[in-house]
Protein backbone atom coordinates (compact mmCIF):
# COMPACT_ATOMS: atom_id res chain seq x y z
CA UNK A 1 0.00 0.00 0.00
CA UNK A 2 1.05 3.56 -0.63
CA UNK A 3 -0.20 6.98 0.10
CA UNK A 4 -0.94 8.92 -3.06
CA UNK A 5 1.39 11.65 -4.32
CA UNK A 6 0.70 14.95 -2.61
CA UNK A 7 -1.71 13.36 -0.12
CA UNK A 8 -3.32 15.79 2.31
CA UNK A 9 -3.53 13.02 4.88
CA UNK A 10 -2.03 9.56 5.17
CA UNK A 11 -4.44 6.85 4.02
CA UNK A 12 -2.25 4.30 5.71
CA UNK A 13 -2.52 6.18 8.97
CA UNK A 14 -6.28 6.35 8.50
CA UNK A 15 -6.44 2.55 8.56
CA UNK A 16 -5.00 2.67 12.05
CA UNK A 17 -7.85 4.87 13.19
CA UNK A 18 -10.76 3.09 11.59
CA UNK A 19 -9.85 -0.58 11.61
CA UNK A 20 -9.81 -2.76 14.71
CA UNK A 21 -6.18 -3.15 15.69
CA UNK A 22 -6.11 -6.92 15.32
CA UNK A 23 -7.66 -6.68 11.87
CA UNK A 24 -4.88 -4.35 10.79
CA UNK A 25 -2.26 -6.56 12.42
CA UNK A 26 -3.59 -9.53 10.46
CA UNK A 27 -3.57 -7.44 7.31
CA UNK A 28 0.17 -6.90 7.83
CA UNK A 29 1.10 -10.35 8.98
CA UNK A 30 3.38 -12.78 7.18
CA UNK A 31 2.29 -15.84 9.13
CA UNK A 32 1.38 -18.72 6.89
CA UNK A 33 -1.44 -19.77 9.21
CA UNK A 34 -3.30 -17.74 11.79
CA UNK A 35 -5.38 -19.51 14.39
CA UNK A 36 -9.07 -18.69 14.38
CA UNK A 37 -9.95 -17.46 17.89
CA UNK A 38 -12.09 -19.94 19.82
CA UNK A 39 -14.84 -17.32 20.13
CA UNK A 40 -14.98 -17.00 16.34
CA UNK A 41 -14.86 -20.75 15.79
CA UNK A 42 -17.90 -21.08 18.01
CA UNK A 43 -19.80 -18.55 15.94
CA UNK A 44 -18.69 -20.30 12.77
CA UNK A 45 -20.26 -23.45 14.16
CA UNK A 46 -23.38 -21.55 15.13
CA UNK A 47 -23.90 -20.27 11.59
CA UNK A 48 -23.53 -23.73 10.13
CA UNK A 49 -19.84 -23.95 9.25
CA UNK A 50 -18.39 -26.04 7.86
CA UNK A 51 -20.65 -25.33 4.92
CA UNK A 52 -21.40 -28.39 2.80
CA UNK A 53 -19.31 -29.59 -0.12
CA UNK A 54 -21.87 -31.06 -2.49
CA UNK A 55 -21.57 -32.97 -5.71
CA UNK A 56 -23.55 -31.59 -8.64
CA UNK A 57 -24.39 -35.03 -9.93
CA UNK A 58 -27.56 -33.99 -11.72
CA UNK A 59 -25.68 -31.27 -13.55
CA UNK A 60 -23.01 -33.77 -14.55
CA UNK A 61 -25.71 -36.09 -15.89
CA UNK A 62 -27.41 -33.28 -17.73
CA UNK A 63 -24.14 -32.26 -19.38
CA UNK A 64 -23.14 -35.86 -19.98
CA UNK A 65 -19.65 -35.06 -18.82
CA UNK A 66 -17.13 -37.57 -17.49
CA UNK A 67 -15.93 -34.82 -15.12
CA UNK A 68 -17.00 -34.79 -11.48
CA UNK A 69 -18.34 -31.45 -10.31
CA UNK A 70 -18.25 -30.47 -6.64
CA UNK A 71 -19.29 -27.20 -5.11
CA UNK A 72 -18.66 -25.56 -1.79
CA UNK A 73 -21.98 -24.04 -0.80
CA UNK A 74 -21.43 -20.75 1.03
CA UNK A 75 -25.09 -19.89 0.52
CA UNK A 76 -25.80 -22.27 3.39
CA UNK A 77 -24.83 -19.60 5.93
CA UNK A 78 -27.72 -17.62 7.40
CA UNK A 79 -26.83 -14.41 5.58
CA UNK A 80 -26.67 -16.38 2.36
CA UNK A 81 -23.10 -15.70 1.26
CA UNK A 82 -19.45 -16.00 2.21
CA UNK A 83 -19.40 -12.43 3.58
CA UNK A 84 -20.15 -13.58 7.12
CA UNK A 85 -16.79 -15.38 7.28
CA UNK A 86 -14.90 -12.11 7.64
CA UNK A 87 -17.64 -10.06 9.27
CA UNK A 88 -17.56 -12.34 12.30
CA UNK A 89 -13.84 -12.11 13.10
CA UNK A 90 -13.75 -8.39 12.34
CA UNK A 91 -16.68 -7.83 14.68
CA UNK A 92 -15.07 -10.04 17.30
CA UNK A 93 -11.77 -8.14 17.17
CA UNK A 94 -13.63 -4.85 17.41
CA UNK A 95 -15.55 -6.12 20.41
CA UNK A 96 -12.36 -7.38 22.07
CA UNK A 97 -11.03 -3.84 21.75
CA UNK A 98 -14.04 -2.56 23.69
CA UNK A 99 -15.86 -1.18 20.67
CA UNK A 100 -19.65 -1.04 21.02
CA UNK A 101 -20.63 0.12 17.59
CA UNK A 102 -19.33 -0.65 14.11
CA UNK A 103 -20.05 0.94 10.78
CA UNK A 104 -19.79 -0.03 7.15
CA UNK A 105 -21.27 0.56 3.73
CA UNK A 106 -23.11 -1.86 1.47
CA UNK A 107 -24.09 -1.93 -2.16
CA UNK A 108 -26.32 -4.86 -3.00
CA UNK A 109 -26.66 -5.64 0.70
CA UNK A 110 -24.79 -8.90 1.26
CA UNK A 111 -21.96 -7.28 3.15
CA UNK A 112 -24.23 -5.07 5.22
CA UNK A 113 -26.29 -8.09 6.18
CA UNK A 114 -23.23 -10.00 7.30
CA UNK A 115 -22.02 -6.98 9.27
CA UNK A 116 -25.36 -6.42 10.99
CA UNK A 117 -25.63 -10.05 12.07
CA UNK A 118 -22.02 -10.24 13.23
CA UNK A 119 -22.33 -7.05 15.24
CA UNK A 120 -25.48 -8.34 16.93
CA UNK A 121 -23.85 -11.68 17.67
CA UNK A 122 -21.11 -9.88 19.59
CA UNK A 123 -23.51 -7.51 21.28
CA UNK A 124 -22.61 -4.40 19.29
CA UNK A 125 -24.65 -1.88 17.39
CA UNK A 126 -24.12 -1.50 13.67
CA UNK A 127 -24.69 1.31 11.23
CA UNK A 128 -24.83 0.56 7.53
CA UNK A 129 -24.74 3.14 4.76
CA UNK A 130 -26.63 1.48 1.93
CA UNK A 131 -26.46 2.83 -1.60
CA UNK A 132 -29.75 4.68 -1.93
CA UNK A 133 -30.88 3.06 -5.15
CA UNK A 134 -30.36 -0.39 -3.61
CA UNK A 135 -32.08 0.72 -0.42
CA UNK A 136 -35.12 1.54 -2.51
CA UNK A 137 -34.93 -1.35 -4.96
CA UNK A 138 -33.95 -4.05 -2.49
CA UNK A 139 -36.19 -3.42 0.50
CA UNK A 140 -35.73 -7.00 1.70
CA UNK A 141 -32.03 -6.47 2.13
CA UNK A 142 -32.77 -3.44 4.23
CA UNK A 143 -35.35 -5.40 6.23
CA UNK A 144 -33.01 -8.24 7.08
CA UNK A 145 -30.33 -5.82 8.29
CA UNK A 146 -32.89 -4.08 10.47
CA UNK A 147 -34.18 -7.38 11.78
CA UNK A 148 -30.63 -8.20 12.77
CA UNK A 149 -30.61 -4.94 14.68
CA UNK A 150 -28.66 -2.81 12.20
CA UNK A 151 -29.33 0.90 11.59
CA UNK A 152 -29.56 1.31 7.85
CA UNK A 153 -29.37 4.66 6.06
CA UNK A 154 -29.86 5.35 2.37
CA UNK A 155 -26.63 6.98 1.23
CA UNK A 156 -26.03 9.85 0.49
CA UNK A 157 -27.33 11.01 3.88
CA UNK A 158 -27.20 14.22 5.87
CA UNK A 159 -25.27 12.41 8.59
CA UNK A 160 -21.87 13.23 7.09
CA UNK A 161 -20.27 16.27 5.51
CA UNK A 162 -19.53 14.27 2.40
CA UNK A 163 -23.11 13.07 2.12
CA UNK A 164 -24.43 16.59 2.66
CA UNK A 165 -22.17 17.90 -0.07
CA UNK A 166 -23.36 15.29 -2.54
CA UNK A 167 -27.00 15.94 -1.68
CA UNK A 168 -26.53 19.66 -2.02
CA UNK A 169 -25.25 19.17 -5.56
CA UNK A 170 -27.97 16.68 -6.41
CA UNK A 171 -30.79 16.12 -3.92
CA UNK A 172 -31.91 13.04 -5.90
CA UNK A 173 -28.48 11.44 -6.13
CA UNK A 174 -28.95 7.64 -6.38
CA UNK A 175 -25.76 7.04 -4.40
CA UNK A 176 -22.80 4.84 -5.17
CA UNK A 177 -20.60 2.39 -3.32
CA UNK A 178 -17.82 4.98 -3.30
CA UNK A 179 -20.03 7.58 -1.66
CA UNK A 180 -21.41 5.10 0.84
CA UNK A 181 -17.89 4.03 1.74
CA UNK A 182 -16.80 7.63 2.19
CA UNK A 183 -19.77 8.27 4.43
CA UNK A 184 -19.12 5.14 6.49
CA UNK A 185 -15.48 6.09 7.01
CA UNK A 186 -16.32 9.69 7.87
CA UNK A 187 -19.01 8.51 10.26
CA UNK A 188 -16.59 6.09 11.89
CA UNK A 189 -14.02 8.87 12.34
CA UNK A 190 -16.54 11.38 13.68
CA UNK A 191 -18.10 8.99 16.16
CA UNK A 192 -14.92 7.10 17.10
CA UNK A 193 -16.38 3.87 15.75
CA UNK A 194 -14.63 1.06 13.94
CA UNK A 195 -15.14 0.36 10.28
CA UNK A 196 -15.51 -3.19 8.94
CA UNK A 197 -14.14 -3.92 5.49
CA UNK A 198 -15.85 -6.31 3.07
CA UNK A 199 -13.32 -7.35 0.44
CA UNK A 200 -10.03 -6.69 -1.42
CA UNK A 201 -7.75 -6.43 1.63
CA UNK A 202 -5.49 -9.38 2.42
CA UNK A 203 -7.01 -9.70 5.87
CA UNK A 204 -10.41 -10.30 4.31
CA UNK A 205 -9.00 -13.02 2.09
CA UNK A 206 -7.25 -14.46 5.13
CA UNK A 207 -10.60 -14.79 6.91
CA UNK A 208 -12.25 -16.16 3.80
CA UNK A 209 -9.58 -18.84 3.51
CA UNK A 210 -11.76 -20.86 5.88
CA UNK A 211 -13.67 -21.74 2.69
CA UNK A 212 -10.67 -23.28 0.96
CA UNK A 213 -9.35 -24.94 4.10
CA UNK A 214 -12.67 -26.64 4.70
CA UNK A 215 -12.94 -27.64 1.05
CA UNK A 216 -9.51 -29.29 1.13
CA UNK A 217 -10.48 -31.27 4.22
CA UNK A 218 -13.81 -32.27 2.69
CA UNK A 219 -12.22 -33.37 -0.58
CA UNK A 220 -9.62 -35.37 1.36
CA UNK A 221 -12.40 -37.08 3.23
CA UNK A 222 -13.99 -38.03 -0.08
CA UNK A 223 -10.63 -39.11 -1.41
CA UNK A 224 -10.87 -36.68 -4.33
CA UNK A 225 -7.95 -34.79 -5.82
CA UNK A 226 -9.13 -31.57 -7.48
CA UNK A 227 -7.97 -30.60 -10.97
CA UNK A 228 -9.77 -27.34 -11.64
CA UNK A 229 -10.77 -24.69 -9.06
CA UNK A 230 -13.23 -22.00 -10.09
CA UNK A 231 -14.72 -18.94 -8.44
CA UNK A 232 -16.16 -15.57 -9.35
CA UNK A 233 -14.41 -12.29 -8.63
CA UNK A 234 -15.87 -9.06 -7.32
CA UNK A 235 -13.06 -7.77 -5.11
CA UNK A 236 -11.55 -11.22 -5.00
CA UNK A 237 -12.25 -12.33 -1.45
CA UNK A 238 -14.44 -15.34 -2.19
CA UNK A 239 -12.15 -16.46 -4.99
CA UNK A 240 -9.04 -15.90 -2.91
CA UNK A 241 -10.47 -17.45 0.22
CA UNK A 242 -11.48 -20.50 -1.79
CA UNK A 243 -8.48 -20.95 -4.07
CA UNK A 244 -5.43 -19.63 -2.20
CA UNK A 245 -5.26 -22.56 0.23
CA UNK A 246 -5.21 -24.86 -2.82
CA UNK A 247 -2.58 -22.79 -4.62
CA UNK A 248 -0.45 -22.43 -1.51
CA UNK A 249 -0.49 -26.16 -0.90
CA UNK A 250 0.10 -27.16 -4.50
CA UNK A 251 -3.35 -28.73 -4.82
CA UNK A 252 -5.11 -28.47 -8.18
CA UNK A 253 -3.79 -27.82 -11.65
CA UNK A 254 -5.87 -24.98 -12.96
CA UNK A 255 -7.41 -21.99 -11.22
CA UNK A 256 -10.02 -19.90 -12.98
CA UNK A 257 -11.22 -16.49 -11.80
CA UNK A 258 -14.46 -15.39 -13.43
CA UNK A 259 -15.57 -11.80 -13.89
CA UNK A 260 -18.46 -10.12 -15.63
CA UNK A 261 -18.05 -9.28 -19.32
CA UNK A 262 -19.89 -6.05 -18.59
CA UNK A 263 -17.09 -5.01 -16.18
CA UNK A 264 -14.24 -6.50 -18.21
CA UNK A 265 -11.42 -5.89 -15.78
CA UNK A 266 -9.44 -9.00 -16.68
CA UNK A 267 -9.51 -8.40 -20.42
CA UNK A 268 -9.17 -4.62 -20.37
CA UNK A 269 -7.96 -3.60 -16.89
CA UNK A 270 -4.44 -2.36 -16.21
CA UNK A 271 -2.06 -3.70 -13.55
CA UNK A 272 -1.12 -0.60 -11.62
CA UNK A 273 -1.39 1.30 -8.35
CA UNK A 274 -4.92 2.42 -7.77
CA UNK A 275 -7.33 3.27 -4.99
CA UNK A 276 -9.41 0.34 -3.78
CA UNK A 277 -12.29 2.76 -3.21
CA UNK A 278 -13.93 5.23 -5.51
CA UNK A 279 -13.47 8.11 -3.10
CA UNK A 280 -9.72 7.54 -2.74
CA UNK A 281 -9.80 7.40 1.04
CA UNK A 282 -7.84 4.17 1.29
CA UNK A 283 -4.15 3.66 0.43
CA UNK A 284 -3.16 2.91 -3.14
CA UNK A 285 -2.57 -0.75 -3.92
CA UNK A 286 -1.18 -2.44 -6.98
CA UNK A 287 -3.89 -4.35 -8.77
CA UNK A 288 -5.67 -5.14 -11.99
CA UNK A 289 -8.09 -2.25 -12.26
CA UNK A 290 -10.42 -0.36 -14.55
CA UNK A 291 -9.52 2.79 -12.61
CA UNK A 292 -11.18 3.90 -9.42
CA UNK A 293 -13.31 6.45 -11.24
CA UNK A 294 -14.69 3.79 -13.55
CA UNK A 295 -18.50 3.73 -13.46
CA UNK A 296 -19.69 0.14 -13.76
CA UNK A 297 -22.86 -0.50 -15.76
CA UNK A 298 -25.89 -1.64 -13.77
CA UNK A 299 -25.70 -5.45 -13.98
CA UNK A 300 -27.66 -7.74 -11.69
CA UNK A 301 -24.57 -9.32 -10.20
CA UNK A 302 -24.05 -6.25 -8.00
CA UNK A 303 -21.16 -7.89 -6.18
CA UNK A 304 -19.10 -7.97 -9.37
CA UNK A 305 -19.51 -4.25 -10.02
CA UNK A 306 -16.07 -3.47 -8.67
CA UNK A 307 -13.32 -1.76 -10.61
CA UNK A 308 -10.38 -3.87 -9.42
CA UNK A 309 -9.19 -7.20 -8.08
CA UNK A 310 -7.38 -7.81 -4.80
CA UNK A 311 -3.60 -7.17 -5.07
CA UNK A 312 -2.70 -10.74 -4.17
CA UNK A 313 -5.05 -12.14 -6.80
CA UNK A 314 -3.89 -9.58 -9.35
CA UNK A 315 -0.29 -10.67 -8.81
CA UNK A 316 -1.19 -14.36 -9.23
CA UNK A 317 -2.98 -13.55 -12.45
CA UNK A 318 -0.12 -11.38 -13.65
CA UNK A 319 2.24 -14.28 -12.94
CA UNK A 320 0.02 -16.61 -14.95
CA UNK A 321 -0.84 -18.84 -12.01
CA UNK A 322 -4.53 -17.95 -12.05
CA UNK A 323 -6.41 -17.83 -15.36
CA UNK A 324 -9.62 -15.97 -16.09
CA UNK A 325 -12.95 -15.87 -17.92
CA UNK A 326 -15.54 -13.17 -18.48
CA UNK A 327 -19.22 -13.83 -19.21
CA UNK A 328 -22.16 -11.61 -20.01
CA UNK A 329 -25.61 -11.67 -18.43
CA UNK A 330 -27.21 -13.89 -21.06
CA UNK A 331 -24.51 -16.47 -20.54
CA UNK A 332 -24.79 -16.45 -16.80
CA UNK A 333 -28.57 -16.54 -16.81
CA UNK A 334 -28.41 -19.65 -18.97
CA UNK A 335 -25.95 -21.22 -16.53
CA UNK A 336 -28.00 -20.21 -13.51
CA UNK A 337 -31.13 -21.74 -14.94
CA UNK A 338 -29.36 -24.97 -15.82
CA UNK A 339 -28.06 -25.16 -12.28
CA UNK A 340 -31.41 -24.37 -10.67
CA UNK A 341 -33.24 -26.96 -12.70
CA UNK A 342 -30.71 -29.70 -12.11
CA UNK A 343 -29.58 -28.97 -8.56
CA UNK A 344 -32.49 -26.95 -7.21
CA UNK A 345 -30.38 -24.22 -5.66
CA UNK A 346 -30.98 -20.67 -6.89
CA UNK A 347 -27.44 -19.31 -7.20
CA UNK A 348 -26.57 -15.66 -6.66
CA UNK A 349 -26.05 -13.94 -10.03
CA UNK A 350 -22.43 -13.42 -8.97
CA UNK A 351 -21.89 -17.12 -8.35
CA UNK A 352 -23.58 -17.94 -11.66
CA UNK A 353 -20.46 -16.58 -13.35
CA UNK A 354 -18.49 -19.40 -11.76
CA UNK A 355 -21.17 -21.88 -12.79
CA UNK A 356 -20.88 -20.81 -16.42
CA UNK A 357 -17.14 -21.48 -16.32
CA UNK A 358 -17.76 -24.85 -14.65
CA UNK A 359 -20.18 -25.84 -17.40
CA UNK A 360 -17.70 -24.88 -20.10
CA UNK A 361 -14.91 -26.80 -18.37
CA UNK A 362 -17.16 -29.81 -17.97
CA UNK A 363 -18.11 -29.73 -21.66
CA UNK A 364 -14.46 -29.35 -22.59
CA UNK A 365 -13.72 -32.42 -20.45
CA UNK A 366 -16.50 -34.24 -22.32
CA UNK A 367 -15.01 -33.39 -25.71
CA UNK A 368 -11.59 -34.53 -24.51
CA UNK A 369 -13.09 -37.45 -22.58
CA UNK A 370 -11.19 -36.32 -19.49
CA UNK A 371 -12.23 -37.59 -16.06
CA UNK A 372 -11.24 -34.48 -14.19
CA UNK A 373 -12.49 -33.15 -10.86
CA UNK A 374 -13.89 -29.63 -11.02
CA UNK A 375 -14.54 -27.81 -7.75
CA UNK A 376 -16.15 -24.41 -7.51
CA UNK A 377 -17.24 -22.00 -4.86
CA UNK A 378 -20.96 -21.27 -4.88
CA UNK A 379 -20.43 -18.07 -2.97
CA UNK A 380 -24.07 -17.33 -2.24
CA UNK A 381 -27.69 -18.15 -2.96
CA UNK A 382 -29.87 -15.89 -5.05
CA UNK A 383 -33.10 -16.01 -3.07
CA UNK A 384 -33.00 -12.29 -2.42
CA UNK A 385 -32.03 -11.71 -6.05
CA UNK A 386 -35.18 -13.25 -7.44
CA UNK A 387 -36.49 -9.93 -8.76
CA UNK A 388 -33.24 -9.70 -10.74
CA UNK A 389 -33.63 -13.15 -12.21
CA UNK A 390 -37.20 -12.29 -13.00
CA UNK A 391 -36.05 -9.30 -15.04
CA UNK A 392 -33.37 -11.40 -16.74
CA UNK A 393 -35.94 -14.07 -17.55
CA UNK A 394 -38.26 -11.51 -19.10
CA UNK A 395 -35.44 -10.06 -21.15
CA UNK A 396 -34.19 -13.43 -22.33
CA UNK A 397 -37.73 -14.51 -23.18
CA UNK A 398 -38.41 -11.34 -25.14
CA UNK A 399 -35.09 -11.79 -26.98
CA UNK A 400 -36.15 -15.31 -27.91
CA UNK A 401 -39.47 -14.11 -29.22
CA UNK A 402 -37.94 -11.57 -31.54
Amino acid at each position, binding site marked *: *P*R*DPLGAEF*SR*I*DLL*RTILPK*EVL*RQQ*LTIERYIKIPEEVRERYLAIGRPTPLLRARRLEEYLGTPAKIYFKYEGATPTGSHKINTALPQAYFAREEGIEHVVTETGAGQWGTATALSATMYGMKSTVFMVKVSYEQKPMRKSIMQLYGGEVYPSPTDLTEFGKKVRKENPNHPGSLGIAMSEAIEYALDHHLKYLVGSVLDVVILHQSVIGQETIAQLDELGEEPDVLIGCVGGGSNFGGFSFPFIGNGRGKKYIAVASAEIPKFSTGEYKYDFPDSAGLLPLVKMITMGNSYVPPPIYAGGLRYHGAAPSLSLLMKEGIVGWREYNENQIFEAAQMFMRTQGIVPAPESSHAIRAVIEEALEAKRANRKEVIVFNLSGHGLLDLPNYDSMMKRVTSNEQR
Partner: protein
Amino acid sequence: MLVVYMTLGYPDNERYLEFMEEAVKNGADILEIGIPPKYAKYDGPVIRKSYEKVAGKFDLWSFLPETRKVIGGTKAIALTYLEDWVQELDDFLCKLKRAGLDGVLFPDLLIDFVDDYQTYSTRVREKGLNNVIFTAPSVPDKMILQVSRQSDLFLYYGVRPTTGIPLPITVSSLVTRVRNLVDNKLVVGFGLSDENDLRKALKAGADGAAIGTAFIQAIDNGGVKQAIDLVIKLRSVLDEF
Protein backbone atom coordinates in the same frame (compact mmCIF):
# COMPACT_ATOMS: atom_id res chain seq x y z
CA MET B 1 24.13 -1.41 14.49
CA LEU B 2 22.41 1.98 14.75
CA VAL B 3 21.43 3.43 11.38
CA VAL B 4 20.47 7.08 11.76
CA TYR B 5 18.35 8.60 9.04
CA MET B 6 17.97 12.30 8.33
CA THR B 7 16.49 14.13 5.40
CA LEU B 8 19.24 16.06 3.66
CA GLY B 9 19.23 19.65 4.87
CA TYR B 10 16.51 19.23 7.51
CA PRO B 11 15.34 21.34 9.22
CA ASP B 12 17.93 23.63 7.61
CA ASN B 13 21.40 23.12 6.30
CA GLU B 14 23.13 24.18 9.48
CA ARG B 15 21.16 22.14 11.97
CA TYR B 16 21.26 19.17 9.61
CA LEU B 17 25.01 19.17 9.70
CA GLU B 18 25.04 19.70 13.45
CA PHE B 19 22.77 16.69 13.93
CA MET B 20 24.86 14.49 11.65
CA GLU B 21 28.04 15.40 13.44
CA GLU B 22 26.61 14.79 16.87
CA ALA B 23 24.91 11.58 15.80
CA VAL B 24 28.22 10.08 14.84
CA LYS B 25 29.80 11.22 18.08
CA ASN B 26 26.98 9.68 20.09
CA GLY B 27 26.89 6.27 18.57
CA ALA B 28 25.48 6.21 15.03
CA ASP B 29 27.11 3.37 13.13
CA ILE B 30 25.81 4.27 9.73
CA LEU B 31 24.13 7.38 8.40
CA GLU B 32 21.27 7.30 5.96
CA ILE B 33 20.70 10.52 4.05
CA GLY B 34 17.33 11.13 2.52
CA ILE B 35 17.45 12.83 -0.87
CA PRO B 36 14.07 14.41 -1.55
CA PRO B 37 12.26 12.41 -4.27
CA LYS B 38 9.47 13.50 -6.56
CA TYR B 39 7.05 11.03 -4.95
CA ALA B 40 7.94 9.49 -1.60
CA LYS B 41 5.74 6.46 -2.15
CA TYR B 42 6.87 4.40 0.76
CA ASP B 43 7.36 7.15 3.31
CA GLY B 44 4.98 8.25 5.97
CA PRO B 45 3.63 11.76 6.46
CA VAL B 46 6.46 13.00 8.72
CA ILE B 47 9.25 12.22 6.31
CA ARG B 48 7.14 13.38 3.38
CA LYS B 49 6.70 16.71 5.10
CA SER B 50 10.42 16.95 5.76
CA TYR B 51 11.06 16.52 2.04
CA GLU B 52 8.63 19.26 1.22
CA LYS B 53 10.25 21.58 3.74
CA VAL B 54 13.80 21.28 2.33
CA ALA B 55 12.81 21.22 -1.31
CA GLY B 56 14.75 23.88 -3.25
CA LYS B 57 16.75 24.96 -0.20
CA PHE B 58 20.09 23.63 -1.52
CA ASP B 59 21.87 22.37 -4.58
CA LEU B 60 22.10 18.63 -4.12
CA TRP B 61 25.52 18.03 -5.56
CA SER B 62 27.22 20.94 -3.83
CA PHE B 63 25.54 20.41 -0.45
CA LEU B 64 25.82 16.63 -0.20
CA PRO B 65 29.66 16.63 0.20
CA GLU B 66 29.27 18.86 3.27
CA THR B 67 28.00 15.82 5.19
CA ARG B 68 31.18 13.88 4.68
CA LYS B 69 33.15 16.72 6.26
CA VAL B 70 31.31 16.44 9.59
CA ILE B 71 30.96 12.66 9.87
CA GLY B 72 34.55 11.65 9.35
CA GLY B 73 34.99 8.03 8.32
CA THR B 74 31.48 6.87 9.27
CA LYS B 75 29.66 5.06 6.50
CA ALA B 76 26.96 7.13 4.83
CA ILE B 77 24.42 5.92 2.34
CA ALA B 78 21.91 7.83 0.27
CA LEU B 79 18.23 6.92 0.46
CA THR B 80 16.31 7.90 -2.63
CA TYR B 81 13.85 6.46 -5.13
CA LEU B 82 15.28 4.72 -8.17
CA GLU B 83 12.29 5.98 -10.11
CA ASP B 84 13.76 9.50 -10.04
CA TRP B 85 17.17 8.49 -11.38
CA VAL B 86 16.60 5.44 -13.52
CA GLN B 87 16.92 7.40 -16.74
CA GLU B 88 20.38 8.69 -15.82
CA LEU B 89 21.46 6.09 -13.32
CA ASP B 90 25.19 5.87 -14.13
CA ASP B 91 25.57 9.61 -13.95
CA PHE B 92 23.69 9.72 -10.65
CA LEU B 93 25.80 6.97 -9.11
CA CYS B 94 29.03 8.62 -10.18
CA LYS B 95 27.93 11.88 -8.66
CA LEU B 96 27.02 10.15 -5.41
CA LYS B 97 30.42 8.56 -5.25
CA ARG B 98 32.08 11.88 -5.92
CA ALA B 99 29.92 13.52 -3.24
CA GLY B 100 31.56 11.21 -0.71
CA LEU B 101 28.80 8.69 -0.12
CA ASP B 102 29.51 5.02 0.53
CA GLY B 103 26.40 3.51 -0.82
CA VAL B 104 22.79 3.83 -1.86
CA LEU B 105 19.44 2.36 -0.86
CA PHE B 106 16.49 2.44 -3.25
CA PRO B 107 13.28 1.61 -1.33
CA ASP B 108 11.40 1.04 -4.61
CA LEU B 109 13.97 -1.34 -6.15
CA LEU B 110 12.23 -4.61 -5.31
CA ILE B 111 8.74 -3.24 -5.53
CA ASP B 112 8.68 -1.32 -8.76
CA PHE B 113 11.78 -2.65 -10.54
CA VAL B 114 11.71 -6.23 -9.39
CA ASP B 115 12.36 -7.80 -12.78
CA ASP B 116 15.62 -5.87 -13.23
CA TYR B 117 16.92 -5.55 -9.69
CA GLN B 118 20.06 -7.52 -10.48
CA THR B 119 21.05 -5.22 -13.32
CA TYR B 120 20.66 -2.17 -11.11
CA SER B 121 22.50 -3.76 -8.19
CA THR B 122 25.37 -4.63 -10.45
CA ARG B 123 25.54 -1.08 -11.75
CA VAL B 124 25.66 0.30 -8.21
CA ARG B 125 28.53 -1.98 -7.29
CA GLU B 126 30.36 -1.27 -10.55
CA LYS B 127 30.48 2.37 -9.54
CA GLY B 128 32.24 1.39 -6.33
CA LEU B 129 29.23 2.01 -4.14
CA ASN B 130 27.72 -0.23 -1.51
CA ASN B 131 24.42 -1.60 -2.65
CA VAL B 132 22.05 -1.71 0.33
CA ILE B 133 18.88 -3.57 -0.51
CA PHE B 134 15.53 -2.80 0.97
CA THR B 135 13.21 -5.71 1.62
CA ALA B 136 9.83 -5.98 3.28
CA PRO B 137 7.44 -8.60 4.70
CA SER B 138 5.59 -8.78 1.38
CA VAL B 139 8.74 -9.97 -0.44
CA PRO B 140 8.66 -13.78 -0.83
CA ASP B 141 11.21 -15.88 1.08
CA LYS B 142 12.98 -17.01 -2.07
CA MET B 143 13.53 -13.49 -3.25
CA ILE B 144 14.78 -12.28 0.13
CA LEU B 145 17.34 -15.05 0.04
CA GLN B 146 18.44 -14.09 -3.48
CA VAL B 147 18.70 -10.36 -2.89
CA SER B 148 20.49 -10.83 0.42
CA ARG B 149 23.52 -11.97 -1.55
CA GLN B 150 23.62 -8.68 -3.38
CA SER B 151 23.20 -6.44 -0.36
CA ASP B 152 26.27 -4.76 1.09
CA LEU B 153 26.85 -3.44 4.61
CA PHE B 154 23.53 -4.87 5.78
CA LEU B 155 20.09 -5.98 4.60
CA TYR B 156 17.42 -3.38 5.25
CA TYR B 157 14.12 -4.84 6.40
CA GLY B 158 11.18 -2.43 6.58
CA VAL B 159 8.70 -4.14 8.89
CA ARG B 160 5.81 -1.81 8.15
CA PRO B 161 4.47 -0.71 4.78
CA THR B 162 5.37 2.90 5.48
CA THR B 163 7.68 4.90 7.72
CA GLY B 164 6.71 6.55 10.95
CA ILE B 165 3.21 5.15 11.44
CA PRO B 166 2.96 2.69 14.32
CA LEU B 167 0.76 0.22 12.51
CA PRO B 168 0.11 -2.86 14.65
CA ILE B 169 2.45 -5.69 13.69
CA THR B 170 4.07 -8.64 15.37
CA VAL B 171 7.70 -7.51 15.16
CA SER B 172 9.23 -10.68 16.53
CA SER B 173 7.74 -13.08 14.02
CA LEU B 174 8.46 -10.71 11.16
CA VAL B 175 12.14 -10.50 12.15
CA THR B 176 12.59 -14.16 13.05
CA ARG B 177 11.49 -15.12 9.58
CA VAL B 178 14.21 -13.09 7.84
CA ARG B 179 16.84 -13.84 10.44
CA ASN B 180 16.41 -17.53 9.65
CA LEU B 181 16.78 -16.86 5.96
CA VAL B 182 19.85 -14.66 5.57
CA ASP B 183 23.42 -14.31 6.82
CA ASN B 184 23.73 -10.55 6.33
CA LYS B 185 23.78 -8.01 9.06
CA LEU B 186 20.08 -7.33 9.49
CA VAL B 187 18.85 -3.80 10.06
CA VAL B 188 15.19 -3.33 10.79
CA GLY B 189 13.34 -0.14 10.02
CA PHE B 190 9.97 1.55 9.38
CA GLY B 191 8.33 2.62 12.57
CA LEU B 192 10.90 1.05 14.86
CA SER B 193 11.44 3.94 17.29
CA ASP B 194 9.19 2.40 19.92
CA GLU B 195 11.53 0.92 22.52
CA ASN B 196 9.39 -2.19 22.93
CA ASP B 197 9.35 -2.88 19.24
CA LEU B 198 13.07 -2.27 19.03
CA ARG B 199 13.87 -4.67 21.82
CA LYS B 200 11.64 -7.31 20.25
CA ALA B 201 13.42 -6.91 16.92
CA LEU B 202 16.84 -7.23 18.53
CA LYS B 203 15.76 -10.18 20.59
CA ALA B 204 14.51 -11.84 17.42
CA GLY B 205 17.96 -11.53 15.92
CA ALA B 206 18.15 -8.16 14.22
CA ASP B 207 21.64 -6.63 14.24
CA GLY B 208 20.42 -3.11 14.31
CA ALA B 209 17.70 -0.61 13.61
CA ALA B 210 17.23 2.23 11.18
CA ILE B 211 15.45 5.19 12.78
CA GLY B 212 14.24 8.29 10.94
CA THR B 213 10.81 9.71 11.65
CA ALA B 214 11.54 9.86 15.37
CA PHE B 215 14.59 12.10 14.82
CA ILE B 216 12.63 14.49 12.66
CA GLN B 217 9.88 14.70 15.26
CA ALA B 218 12.52 15.24 17.97
CA ILE B 219 14.13 18.07 16.05
CA ASP B 220 10.70 19.61 15.47
CA ASN B 221 9.84 19.36 19.15
CA GLY B 222 13.16 20.09 20.89
CA GLY B 223 15.76 20.84 18.30
CA VAL B 224 18.97 18.98 17.61
CA LYS B 225 19.56 18.45 21.32
CA GLN B 226 16.44 16.38 21.73
CA ALA B 227 17.24 14.39 18.63
CA ILE B 228 20.69 13.60 19.90
CA ASP B 229 19.25 12.55 23.26
CA LEU B 230 17.26 10.04 21.31
CA VAL B 231 20.39 8.81 19.53
CA ILE B 232 21.96 8.26 22.96
CA LYS B 233 18.95 6.42 24.24
CA LEU B 234 18.65 4.16 21.22
CA ARG B 235 22.38 3.45 21.37
CA SER B 236 21.97 2.29 24.93
CA VAL B 237 19.09 0.01 24.02
CA LEU B 238 21.18 -1.47 21.23
CA ASP B 239 24.07 -1.94 23.57
CA GLU B 240 21.97 -4.12 25.81
CA PHE B 241 22.15 -6.79 23.13
